[in-house]
């Protein structure tokens, strides 16, 4: 497996990214804050509006470092990547299969097996680790339902049926996520997923983490030469990275939800780390955002044994490993697509 390289998160609101030789230089108010060799980087994510110099852009493109612009609150604005890599035949197959009902259904099932299977593992872990601090009956009844929904999905004959079964599983999983929050329960009450905009701290944290995850997954797909926009479970919609959303299903719980729980339960993040906007939307404050990013980076450096090919890899390479396995399946090297099952 290739090396896990760093993502550079530029969070200072007035930071400007320039280049000098083979390095990026981050300046804030004209003062140099940081200088990073480009070869250590996988991607650069800029939260803020000041921007990036044309030189720095060129340096990123030449080194296959993707450059992503987000608003200070983490909303996606734009991404710049260099030339498309990989085999044009691979993408053709991807497009053909995305139009093929049978293949679409098969792959959609794989993504959802992983999503719900990993949600199941997350709840089982909470049950195992904190048997006295959670409502065991509630968690167990959700686990039963998740098992049933996995069977439903397995038996689904159409994408609609599949989405129905998934919707039910997702709602009941989210209904017990608050059970897994063990501290500051008052400030972190969570009733379900609210996206645009997030109207409570937990949703704000999840939205932010999902954005980070989406960037990692999109980048992984591009790296293996797949088109992040053309999906199976998620259908084409212009401007939407449907395949990235598909593949993200495998990692939402494992990466994002678990990171959210760790940050809250280890008391790295508190309810007053969020600002409430007039609209009722919640966002992370600057300092808290840095804590989240640090934890996220840390998480990527952990190692895990990959359940399918049985080798140790850095957690941060999982999206890349799955993108690669998906490409292998499309190319006919594998007899099925093996999604990521957290064990």
């Amino acid at each position, binding site marked *: 497996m290739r090396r896990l390289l760093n993502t550079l998160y530029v969070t200072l609101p007035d930071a400007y990214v320039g280049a000098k030789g083979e390095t990026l230089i981050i300046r804030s108010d004209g003062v140099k804050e940081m200088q990073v060799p480009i070869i250590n980087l996988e991607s650069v994510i800029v939260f803020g509006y000041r921007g990036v110099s044309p030189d720095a852009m060129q340096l990123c493109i030449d080194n296959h470092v993707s450059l992503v612009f987000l608003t200070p609150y983490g909303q996606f604005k734009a991404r710049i990547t260099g030339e498309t890599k990989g085999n044009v035949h691979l993408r053709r197959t991807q497009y053909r299969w995305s139009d093929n009902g049978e293949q679409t259904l098969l792959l959609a099932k794989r993504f959802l097996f992983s999503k719900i299977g990993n949600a199941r593992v997350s709840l089982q872990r909470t049950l195992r680790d904190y048997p006295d601090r959670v409502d065991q009956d509630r968690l167990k009844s959700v686990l039963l339902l998740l098992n049933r929904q*996995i069977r439903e999905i397995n038996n689904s004959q159409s994408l609609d049926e599949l989405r129905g079964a998934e919707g039910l599983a997702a709602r009941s999983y989210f209904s017990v996520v608050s059970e897994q929050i063990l501290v500051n329960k008052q400030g972190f009450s969570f009733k379900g997923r609210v996206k645009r905009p997030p109207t409570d701290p937990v949703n704000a944290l999840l939205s932010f983490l999902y954005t980070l995850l989406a960037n990692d997954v999109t980048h992984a797909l591009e790296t293996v030469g797949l088109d992040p926009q053309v999906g199976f479970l998620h259908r084409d919609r212009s401007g939407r990275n449907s395949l990235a959303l598909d593949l993200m299903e495998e990692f939402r719980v494992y990466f994002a939800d678990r990171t959210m729980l760790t940050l809250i339960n280890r008391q790295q993040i508190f309810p007053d780390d969020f600002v409430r906007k007039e609209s009722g939307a919640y966002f992370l404050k600057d300092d808290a955002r840095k804590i989240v990013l640090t934890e996220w980076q840390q998480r990527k450096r952990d190692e895990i044994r990959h359940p*399918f090919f049985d080798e140790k890899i850095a957690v941060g390479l999982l999206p890349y490993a799955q993108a690669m396995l998906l490409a292998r399946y499309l190319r006919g090297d594998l007899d099925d697509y093996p999604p990521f099952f957290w064990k």
Partner: protein
Amino acid sequence: MISGIQHFAFCQRQWALIHIENQWRENVLTTEGNHVHQRVDDSGFDETRGVFRIVRSVPLVSESLRIRGIADMVEFERQSEKCEETVMLDGREGNWKVTPVEYKRGKPKSDDRDIVQLCAQAICLEEMLGVKIACGAIYYAETRRREQVMFSDSLRLRVKTLVAGMRLLYDENRTPRAEYQKHCERCSLISICKPKWSAKGYSKSAAAYVKRFVEGGEDQSDDC
């Protein structure tokens, strides 16, 4: 791409990953080390020492093989007599024998990948200069030795066969499946190729893996 021949001779899949999928070219260049090349990559460099004239980074092309590329270095040696192995050089007197020289960071290989690359360069030079080249040389940095290579008919045939094979795959835009062999352990692309994931005879069944998950879930429903 003449430099592709060395990859193709080593492993067709390696070549396809690099030259068809253009995914990992930088990876290979870094692992196979351009350090030795830095010195050499100085196009237009031209020096004369005694009876030798050395030209670096020489663009090459062959109509018959339909390939192009760059030779690290071509050495011209002044001969006392004119023959089919000598050429005349613009602005210089005398008859010059032509020898392609390739620099390699490592040491001589047990397979012929370096030799076929050099031979392909020789074939290009022969066509471009209208000369016959009987032998060339490869300088290995690790052993600091210059090895002589004779361009025999069988070597030339091997080059033609390799080039034809490359063209076929290129036209079909096809990457062959991995075949896990001993040489994989020495391959700079092994971490990307992952030959054991999908090689014939080694391939794990992903279908069985998915099936275990679905059925495993049913067993688990009893414990909760």
